[in-house]
């Protein structure tokens, strides 16, 4: 058998899941779709001594609109989200990004929350969450806390989640009518993690744009946004704004792409997205 032995617990509620995680201690892991955790276990890079399955907990499934926010259960699969046609109206950027995540077989089980807690630097959902300034709801036996994506994703594969804590909900702002968005990524093969990805959205005159895959965590392009806001003619200022934004970046470099190539790609994809959505 590929993975090391572990005890398996099927949780029926969030209360039961966080209770189990507290009781089992630091070497227990929650599992939802397992599309990142099980490969790591098969390679024995991860050897949890217990798994708490949260994939059947009704509270962690589906989405609802409360005021001007969409609340998504952390264990909702990517495939289930893609089937929600109404969600395209409320979260067009997320819906544009979803088909780029893995393949049809991994989206069947892979969840929105699983992608966020795995925190791959290139992950599409983490990029969208950073772009939209999503709020993440974490729960443990003693209560609940809410973190911005900035405070949640601390580095490559590293989050602020503490042992015994479970990501239960992702909260994203509803897109106003007339919101325009763009999502672009380049991967070596379709379905691979992106080398670099860009997500952008403009609602009224409020621009949000971020790059994934460039650094350990998605980079929100605040300097670029500032520069474009100052410019009389935003379209003419794009090149300069991108140059300023990427000026101090030390891009990730690995076997798939060098840092300078990633930096180049980021500039190209940022420009493509801006040209697509700027008025």
């Amino acid at each position, binding site marked *: 058998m590929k993975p090391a032995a572990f005890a398996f617990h099927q949780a029926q509620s969030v209360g039961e899941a966080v209770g189990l995680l507290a009781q089992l201690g630091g070497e227990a892991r929650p599992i939802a779709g397992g599309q990142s955790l099980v490969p790591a276990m098969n390679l024995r890079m991860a050897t949890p001594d217990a798994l708490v399955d949260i994939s059947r907990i009704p509270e962690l499934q589906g989405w609802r609109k409360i005021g001007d926010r969409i609340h998504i259960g952390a264990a909702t699969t990517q495939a289930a989200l893609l089937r929600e046609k109404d969600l395209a109206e409320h979260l067009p950027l997320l819906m544009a990004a979803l088909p780029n995540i893995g393949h049809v077989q991994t989206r*069947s089980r892979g969840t929105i929350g699983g992608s966020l807690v795995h925190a791959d630097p290139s992950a599409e959902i983490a990029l969208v969450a950073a772009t939209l300034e999503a709020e993440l709801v974490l729960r443990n036996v003693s209560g609940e806390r809410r973190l911005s994506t900035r405070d949640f994703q601390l580095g490559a594969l590293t989050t602020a989640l503490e042992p015994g804590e479970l990501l239960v909900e992702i909260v994203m702002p509803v897109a106003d009518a007339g919101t325009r968005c763009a999502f672009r990524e380049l991967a070596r093969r379709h379905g691979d993690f992106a080398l670099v990805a860009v997500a952008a959205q403009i609602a009224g005159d409020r621009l949000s744009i971020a790059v994934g895959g460039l650094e350990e965590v998605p980079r929100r392009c605040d300097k670029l946004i500032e520069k474009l806001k100052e410019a009389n003619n935003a379209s003419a200022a794009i090149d300069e704004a991108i140059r300023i934004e990427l000026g101090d970046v030390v891009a990730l470099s690995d076997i798939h792409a060098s840092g300078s190539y990633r930096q180049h790609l980021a500039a190209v994809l940022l420009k493509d997205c801006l040209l697509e959505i700027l008025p």
Partner: protein
Amino acid sequence: MKVSCTVNGERVEADVPSRLLLSDFLRHELRLTGTNVGCEMGVCGACTVIVNDEPVRSCLMFAVQADGATVGTIEGLDSDGRLTPIQRAFHERHALQCGFCTPGILMTLAALELRNAMPKTETDVREALSGNICRCTGYQNIVDAVLESAP
């Protein structure tokens, strides 16, 4: 741990270690060796089966997680021993050489068919099958076969 599920229409009950992968449960316990195992890390797609009407990689799921589920494998694709239209198109178009990836590809397509989501254009076929790696055919004959069998 006890697992009880339906595989190809038959009720199955077994007592398995929690770390047993669904792919190994199908192959070693149920002797359904049509589901092939390639990379065992979720990359190649050879082990694709249908769980509750969705295509999944059976190497990225534990057998205990299939408790209560309905599982379909290549052995159950057709019940009366005749090839399905897609299988026939694969045969006629020479869409396989060594055949190792074929069960996974057919199960992916069968799952899409269940949802009326069969790809209709070359681009869509290539995207739908992007999670199934074939090292023999160069994909062209696979794409042709899928397009030919599209209604």
